[in-house]
């Protein structure tokens, strides 16, 4: 509760207590009027002021105006008819304020929830100055400065570790609480939290260009593009209130000209005004979208505006890039085939020996394939001697390991040294290994499927997607295998980036439903921009993707695609529920009020009740 909320709560309690107390006081006439005005003004003075200001600024027809007119009207009627029944006016104001208070409190709570999770803005950076740590504003730090990050602190700027090792919590960036180990030479991203060791980091980016700033910028501007439902509500409220006020005037005047019973019809017109207050709609619809966007960012899905949430909920066709989206986009050792096994079963001892040799030979190479082989054989520092390493351009590498001459490379290298190499059917890049000139076998390095790729395709179908298309620049046989493994029926292979755009356009032209494209932002930014909804994967690092996409998934998990669609669907379902529910109840009450069945108590309960329920319903989108 903030100060304003506490103050308003006190006002509500004071007015309620006074009103109950006044029930036991027997007074009449002017004294009674004066006594009842105390709780009325305590709880309603700000509404009256706002209504007066609204009239002055020609913004009259808002909910403050409706409440002011209705309650003042009720008081005037009470004086005029001599009934002295002021409780209705006070009660209307009281319940209206209770509803407002509740809404403000509920929003405050959910705001805290979201902002705590998005709290990635670093406040300071430590630099070493004459042996002492000094806290500096991160926006003043230049690229190439060495900063020190202590355990428990946020990484303030993107950079490379130059000293120390530690574990980072990336949950604020990715929505996943999987800790990441970093050591010297590793890249660290701002917004992560350093968990245990002290790190010295050389910054590689300015504060404004660092990941944390970019993400915050994205989140804070997410609401800039309004959805159709929100625009509908804004327009609706603009037309609705004048129509309601007009009808109320007509209701007060026309029947009373016929029947002559002005007081009754004025009272009914006032009830009509109270019921017709559009609070539930104008409050809950934007709130639902905010909550939906908030809930999505909590799950590591950044959506750039509520209009995209709306389109996302209508996605029936998902077009996906292969590399980096469904596959990991990095090479890994897929299999090792020693010559004795003839490409079928694997012999663990011999396979290990082949990996062992190739890891040593590739020791100094930075080629992605070399990295993948070294990764597959972690026990590389085993004291073996590696000498006379020689890189043979376009062929491979030759080196002496423990005195044995090892050749690691392609077929041409094997031909050149006269080793009897064997072809292999397995998909991927084949690395042949020869020991002392004799063929030993080959290592297959391939881009592997992401662990949850298959499940993500299933989940997409479950989320209502009825067509999945895979586009790739890769070879047809690789594409066929990946599509087959994942259960994707339709794929187009060997596409250049421009052809991907053409392919997407032809899909767009044949579908009336929304088409989403999912890519990793590397050479598919134009496709991302062209789709109804561009979803970029693994935004950490790919700037072009953040720019071009409408939805950014913070990590590489393809399961988040269906998650995003589900969140969008749930949010839009809540929006529809609230629109139908609020308008339905209003119409019903308006009809009852107009024929005199509903009284003012009924009216205010209907109004506040609908609003409270709609707000509670809207907040469900947070945990979608």
């Amino acid at each position: 509760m903030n100060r304003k909320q506490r103050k308003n709560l006190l006002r509500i309690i004071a007015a309620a207590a006074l009103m109950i107390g006044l029930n036991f006081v027997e007074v009449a006439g002017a004294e009674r009027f004066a006594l009842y005005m105390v709780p009325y003004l305590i709880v309603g003075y700000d509404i009256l002021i706002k209504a007066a200001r609204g009239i002055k600024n020609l913004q009259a027809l808002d909910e403050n105006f409706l409440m002011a007119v209705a309650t003042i009207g009720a008081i005037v009627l009470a004086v005029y008819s001599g009934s002295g029944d002021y409780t209705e006016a006070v009660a209307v104001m009281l319940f209206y304020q209770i509803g407002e208070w509740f809404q403000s409190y509920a929003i405050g709570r959910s705001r805290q929830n979201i902002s705590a999770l998005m709290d990635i803005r670093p406040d300071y950076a430590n630099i070493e100055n004459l042996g002492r740590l000094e806290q500096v504003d991160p926006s003043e730090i230049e690229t190439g400065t060495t900063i020190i990050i202590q355990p428990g602190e946020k990484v303030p700027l993107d950079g490379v570790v130059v000293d120390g090792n530690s574990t980072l919590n990336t949950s604020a960036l990715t929505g996943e609480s999987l800790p990441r180990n970093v050591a010297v030479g590793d890249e660290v991203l701002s917004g992560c939290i350093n968990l245990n060791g002290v790190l010295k980091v050389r910054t590689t980016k300015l504060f404004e260009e660092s990941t944390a700033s970019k993400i915050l910028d994205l989140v804070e501007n997410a609401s800039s593009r309004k959805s159709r439902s929100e625009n509908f509500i804004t327009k609706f409220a603009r037309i609705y209130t004048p129509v309601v006020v007009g009808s109320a005037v007509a209701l007060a005047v026309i029947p009373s000209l016929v029947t002559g019973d002005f007081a009754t019809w004025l009272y009914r017109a006032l009830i009509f005004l109270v019921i017709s207050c559009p609070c539930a709609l104008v409050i809950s619809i934007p709130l639902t979208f905010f909550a939906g966007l908030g809930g999505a960012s909590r799950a590591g899905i950044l959506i750039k505006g509520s209009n995209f949430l709306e389109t996302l909920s209508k996605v029936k066709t998902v077009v996906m890039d292969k590399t980096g989206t469904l596959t990991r986009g990095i090479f890994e050792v897929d299999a090792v085939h020693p010559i004795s096994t003839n490409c079928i079963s694997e012999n663990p001892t011999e396979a290990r020996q082949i990996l062992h040799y190739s890891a040593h030979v590739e020791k100094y190479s930075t080629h992605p394939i070399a990295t993948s082989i070294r990764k597959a054989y972690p026990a590389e520092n085993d004291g073996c001697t590696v000498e006379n390493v020689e890189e043979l351009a376009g062929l491979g590498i030759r080196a002496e390991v423990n005195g044995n001459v090892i050749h690691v490379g392609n077929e041409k290298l094997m031909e050149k040294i006269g080793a009897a190499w064997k072809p292999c059917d397995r998909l991927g890049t084949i690395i042949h290994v020869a020991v002392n000139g004799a063929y030993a076998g080959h290592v297959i390095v391939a881009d592997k499927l992401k662990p949850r790729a298959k499940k993500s395709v299933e989940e997409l179908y479950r989320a209502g997607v009825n067509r999945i298309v895979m586009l790739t620049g890769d070879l047809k046989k690789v594409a066929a295998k990946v599509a087959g493994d994942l259960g994707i029926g339709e794929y187009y292979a060997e596409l250049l980036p421009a052809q991907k755009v053409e392919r997407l356009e032809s899909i767009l032209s044949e579908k009336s439903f929304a088409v989403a494209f999912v890519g990793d932002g590397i050479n598919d930014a134009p496709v991302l921009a062209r789709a109804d909804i561009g979803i970029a994967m693994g935004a950490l690092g790919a700037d072009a993707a953040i720019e071009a996409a409408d939805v950014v998934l913070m990590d590489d998990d393809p399961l988040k695609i269906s998650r995003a669609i589900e969140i969008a669907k749930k949010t839009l379902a809540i929006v529809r529920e609230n629109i139908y529910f609020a308008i339905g109840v209003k119409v019903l009450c308006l009809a009852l009020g107009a024929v005199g069945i509903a009284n003012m108590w009924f009216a205010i309960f209907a109004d506040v009740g609908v609003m409270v329920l709609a707000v509670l319903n809207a907040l469900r989108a947070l945990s979608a």
Partner: protein
Amino acid sequence: MRKNYKIDVDCANCANKMEVAANDTAGVKNAVVNFMTLKMQVEFEDGADAKEVMGRVRENCKRVESDCEIFI
């Protein structure tokens, strides 16, 4: 030139009203109000004086929603 301002406002629709009012202010190229984070991001026209423009933005916002605040 773009700047971020902290704001205070109670309801989502009031935030939308503020956004419209801010966009209608002379010197403002584009203004975005984020209700969830309570921030207003204002992009100024070239050569506009941010302080002076924001004074008018606040005035316009108060006109449509008296219960709002912009921390300039």
